[in-house]
């Protein structure tokens, strides 16, 4: 049912494009870290799982979400609860760590792929809706449950495809294809979830924003995360090139 007094969220196109690019960058970095999981043992394996999960949950998903939230221009002021914002990052990272650990264990198969994709997809979805719950504003958020379910389905299906590309293939299609598809998973889920949301003013004053993170603070945090992702990606590329050159016949 349409709401006549709903607050419109108009997306800045440039920031929308930037959000996809950041999700692809984060996904590329995370999946390049993840494909080392199958061959790793002991502490090295745990390091790869944690690093890949952090890059995916914190970089690809969390940073993308808040760039997209900054892209969403509304007529009301919005700030973000620090605790729930941090929790959203933890949910994304933990779920992605679990999904990547499952995908990287034992012989790769369809059953394992499906379970890993569900974990990753729910990580994207859980992070998004926790991040939405962190919004502090003089309005209430109402959700269309059909579109919410669709957003989760998009995240899960696209995650399964991305994991198949990353762990099953080799070469450029593996590296780039998986990142591009995972970017679609993250952005597709987010913008479907935003379409599911309706913001209705509730008459609360500006006091509701007190104590929350402003857009400027979030922007600084996102910039820092994106810089770290880029640095890790470049370092990993150099390290892999060197390792490849050092393999002796």
């Amino acid at each position: 049912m349409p709401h006549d007094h709903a607050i419109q969220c108009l997306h800045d196109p440039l920031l929308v494009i930037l959000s996809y690019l950041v999700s692809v960058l984060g996904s590329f970095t995370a999946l390049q870290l993840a494909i080392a999981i199958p061959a790793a043992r002991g502490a090295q394996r745990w390091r790869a799982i944690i690093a890949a999960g952090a890059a995916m949950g914190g970089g690809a998903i969390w940073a993308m979400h808040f760039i997209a939230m900054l892209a969403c221009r509304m007529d009301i002021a919005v700030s973000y609860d620090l605790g729930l914002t941090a929790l959203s990052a933890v949910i994304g990272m933990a779920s992605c760590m679990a999904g990547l650990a499952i995908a990287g264990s034992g012989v790769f198969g369809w059953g394992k792929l499906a379970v890993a994709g569900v974990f990753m997809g729910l990580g994207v979805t859980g992070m998004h809706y926790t991040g939405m719950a962190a919004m502090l504003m003089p309005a209430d958020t109402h959700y269309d449950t059909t579109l919410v379910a669709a957003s989760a389905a998009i995240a899960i299906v696209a995650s399964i495809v991305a994991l198949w590309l990353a762990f099953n293939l080799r070469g450029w299609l593996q590296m780039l294809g998986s990142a591009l598809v995972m970017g679609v998973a993250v952005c597709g889920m987010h913008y479907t979830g935003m379409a599911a949301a309706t913001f209705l003013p509730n008459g609360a004053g500006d006091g509701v924003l007190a104590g929350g993170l402003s857009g400027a603070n979030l922007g600084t945090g996102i910039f820092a995360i994106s810089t770290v992702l880029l640095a890790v990606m470049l370092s990993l590329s150099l390290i892999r090139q060197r390792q490849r050159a050092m393999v002796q016949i």
Partner: protein
Amino acid sequence: MVDVEFRVVSDRRDGLLLALGQTVIAADFTLLRQRMVNSDEGVVLTMLVRGPENGLLMLEERLGTHHLVNSFEASPVEAAQARDAAPASAAAARTAAAPSANAATAVDMRRVETLLPQLARNYPNIFIQLLALEHDLPPAQREATLRYIGQRVGAWVYKRDYALGGHLPLADSVRHIALPALRQLLQAELHEDVLRIRNSPFCHRGEPGSCCHFLRGMLGGLLAGPHGTDQVRIVENHCRNTGAEACGFEFSA
């Protein structure tokens, strides 16, 4: 019996001695002495092993294609140490036999170890050198030597280009690892789980029977990474040299 010193370089220290020690024992060799140090190359494990001469090539193949091994060198220890292990009554006979047997093996291994870095530098343009080697080898040594070189090249290509990613079932390994790797060298296609090669340079060179020993070895080396050398069996069921349209390789685990 021969004593051989192996110098193995690996990225990993955890479990290295146990894994390679089991490989040595499985090849009917005894591990006499070992030393492990960290270096700029990585973890360097030096093993002195003793065992049957006719099992040496198999042990080297298994070590060379082991997933923990980045590189290795094999150096025969002085024949005098091998004589010390023999019963006194047979010492004279073995002394006479061992040097010549060792010499034949040493010449082959030296030639192989000299050729392999050249193949790595020239890869994928390697067939001129391989065909020259095949021409120079005595007929009795061709199959084993070319298969061994193929195993080493295949394992090297796998570690360099295909090691990152999931552990795939055999059929997917053939499709996503063996096929693209062979396509760097030759015209290869997969038809109902049979890998077919239309332009093997080893065919029609005057030798009877199936002759793509290097390719069979290379496929083994490529697929040994995720599955282990002993777990994959590759059969050349068709060969252009025997009149088939293409050389065909079947895989089983």
